[in-house]
């Protein structure tokens, strides 16, 4: 699965994207966050305040209960501040 990070989520994790094999036990966005947090303190820092983390699957906003359903791409980012 391709995982993208933007803005301060990207800065805290230290990369803008990565390709990861996700275990079968990971079924929702929330599961994926919990699994990523096991990978190191940089991930725990990025997801410290989960309510401030937005996610998108197939480039559409989703909430943390959304199933991954073998999506090929997911993105994590702070609340948007354009315009």
């Amino acid at each position: 699965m391709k995982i993208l990070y933007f803005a301060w989520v990207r800065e805290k994790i230290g990369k803008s994207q990565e390709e990861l094999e996700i275990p079968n036990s990971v079924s929702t966005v929330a599961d994926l966050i919990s699994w990523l947090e096991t990978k190191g303190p940089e991930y725990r820092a990025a997801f410290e305040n989960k309510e401030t983390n937005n996610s998108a699957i197939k480039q559409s906003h989703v909430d943390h209960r959304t199933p991954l359903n073998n999506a090929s791409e997911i993105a994590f980012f702070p609340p948007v501040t354009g315009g």
Partner: protein
Amino acid sequence: MTIRIQTEDFDITKEINLLKEERSKCGKEDVGAIVTFTGTVRDMAGKTPISSMSLEHYPGMTEKQLEAIAEEANKRWPLLGTTIIHRIGELNPGDNIVLVITLSSHRHAAFEAADFLMDFLKSKAPFWKKEQPLEGEANWVDARDSDKKSLTRWEK
């Protein structure tokens, strides 16, 4: 409908004329009202003087979201043209950030649609601003509660 993400500046008159010409090609001069909104970089973030700002976005998702927002506006109001242009990269105080244009036969539709487009762009389009203060480290801009509240005006 024009949707563009670009680093370069835009010219409002030129963008309006492009939309008007597009409509004229349909053999009609039925545009009576043109509303534009331009967002520009301010030199203060609250009480902190700002020297510059940088804008990051999610390529692909941005265009998809802006198209969906423009389509929704075209469903709600009888628009005869819509433009959304958003700049990315490094910007300075006074610089243009975003342009929204709506064309319609009557003014209320054009005003409401432009207002709607900006509210949805602010809350749904994946752009992030980072402000560089005159002194100290750059900060990611926080989302505003007022922008979220503003969205509720459009609930049907």
